[in-house]
């Protein structure tokens, strides 16, 4: 098998596999911002970084309610926060760009993982050392603000 077709075969196989496992993602709601809007945020973490530097906060959002919601902004007392997304172009160039909102349809789970969507934190006013945490306030369009303390650690 040529390298090219091998890669294509593997990629296709994986995408389908990823899809079929998507519905089975279990979720335990950690915090909720009101009975009507059961938005939960779990598994928040951030990489260690020096004061003055930057990091990213990763987490999993889940909408257990019956109406759609969206993450529209985030902030932290420790730095400036933007909703960001990493993309890779045809030449293998990676880049990040801000996103205005992260949609969270009813019943959906959206993971913000390395290499994809994340909360970019710049201008850290304190160092983030492993074992510590960084406070982040997420604002959802309907559920309103949700406060999380992201654990500082390596993945």
């Amino acid at each position: 098998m040529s390298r090219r077709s091998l890669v294509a075969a593997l990629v296709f196989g994986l995408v389908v596999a990823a899809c079929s496992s998507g519905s089975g993602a279990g979720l335990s709601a950690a915090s909720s911002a009101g009975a009507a809007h059961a938005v939960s945020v779990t598994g928040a973490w951030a990489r260690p970084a020096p004061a003055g530097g930057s990091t990213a906060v990763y987490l999993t959002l889940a909408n257990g309610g019956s109406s759609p919601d969206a993450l529209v902004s985030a902030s932290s007392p420790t730095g400036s926060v933007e909703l960001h997304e990493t993309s890779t172009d045809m030449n293998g160039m990676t880049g990040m760009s801000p996103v205005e909102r992260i949609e969270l349809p009813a019943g959906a789970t959206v993971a913000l993982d390395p290499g994809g969507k994340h909360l970019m934190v710049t201008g850290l006013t304190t160092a983030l050392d492993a074992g510590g945490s960084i406070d982040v306030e997420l604002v959802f369009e309907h559920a309103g603000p949700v406060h999380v303390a992201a654990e500082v650690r390596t993945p």
Partner: protein
Amino acid sequence: MTRRTAPVAPVDESTRILDGGFWLVLVLALACGALLLVSFVSGLGGGTGAPAAADEDALSPSAEASIAAIDPAVFLADTPEDAPPIDLTAADGRRFSLASLRGSPTFVFFGYTHCTDVCPATIGTVGEVLAETQDVDARALFVTIDPERDTPAWLTEYARYMPSGFVPLTGTPDEIATTAKAWDVQYAKVDEGDPTNYSMSHTATVRLVDAAGLVRATFPFGATRDQMAAALRDVVADPVTDQGTASGPTPATAAPASSAAAAASAAPAAQVPLTVQVTSTSVWAGPPSPIILSLSRDGAPVIDPSLHPTVQLRSAAGDPVGAPVTAVPVQPPGEDVVRYVASPKIPAPGPWRIDVSYPLPGTTAVGSADIAALDPGATPPIGGPAPTVHTPTLTDVAGVAKAVTTDPAPDLRLSSTSTSDALAAGRPFVLVVDSTKFRVSPACGRAIVMARFLLDRWPDVAFIHLEPYRYSIVTDTPVLDGSLEDPTLTDVAAAWGVGSQPWGVRSMPWTFVVDGRGIVRAAYQGVMGTDDVDVIVSMIQAGG
């Protein structure tokens, strides 16, 4: 898997197309896969209840997952070629070349430290590979494509957060451009309107250079630890037999000149190699001034708080200079680490070497590190009295913060005490000469951020911020007297010698640490690392 392809073999056209278009093929395949996923999920008719979210998020995680499934052999080069040279500046200011790592397989990655996602993820993955393959003694180079912000001083700070075995490198914009081009790395600033808070778009592949200096593998972003480790072991187990084209720089037999770790391997067999890292961001020629050392042996940090290693200064050629000095152990409160502070007298600015040793049962631990001593100009000599000038405080300006700081959101504690107050009270102080608004260098403003970070750790020490340049408040806005190209120092800043030659008035920031007796104990040009101030203040507070 056998890949003893003769490196001299001509690259036939089909191979070239495959190599050049490989990622194109992969990305296209991923894009198709994502489309397939979209239609697949949509077809579920809400089975997961989340079609839109799944669509949006489909590409990134599945792309990574897909790459993870690829046989690592795919990443190996069919026709290994000589690694292009890398000859840049390390965090301590000394030159560092890839050729000096000849003999150790080395991962090479281009990125930038303000990158929040791709770079830390990649550095983390490579770090895990290094940790789990310690038997093969692999290294990793991180080459910045953002030399404006990634200065040596900043890299020193950042290096504390990198996995061990990583060497961060920077250079002039021209050097970086040349190096990146040779490595086929593209990069561009993504201007988001703020000249200091931009992101970069860049090629995020990781290359693996083997012990002979040949590029043996290229990993796309998203390659896993297991894939990289497998490829590394493959490369180590299967060297290219024909060394005929390995015509790069000669192996570094004069090891100490390159890296601390390489230097350690030069120790005679009867001795135990010691890895010496200089964590001070500034080392000064002139009177004895502190050099902060981090020591490790067999990959484990040396954290003996009673150890007093011996430090011998040597010329860059290796000749001993002056008598050996004894380093002092310092353990900052609440920290697990122990640093060792040596204060040799360095006769002149330029490259020097230090040998560090201490006795062990039946043997001696020995290591060395290169240092680059800076010219202190007319700054107050370390070990001598601090200038008795009065830095302005909020009280002096009737509480108008803008008159003493250009920080738009200042920490007023940095403007509440004058250096003259601290001197009169016998209180140690850290003076940070820096400007948030009048940024003559990309480092400007960062020393203030660092001071804010350290402030809470040391309530008995005064942290004092001094604006270096004269300015006026015009309708509520600080306006510089003169221009950013040729600003005018305040008399107080001039008294600290920060505008003196060879540095000049645009050499901000500067930081000085003064003990309770009014003696200057340390000075830093550029952003100081947390180690710098933390360790020296710990030493002072412990009565050292």
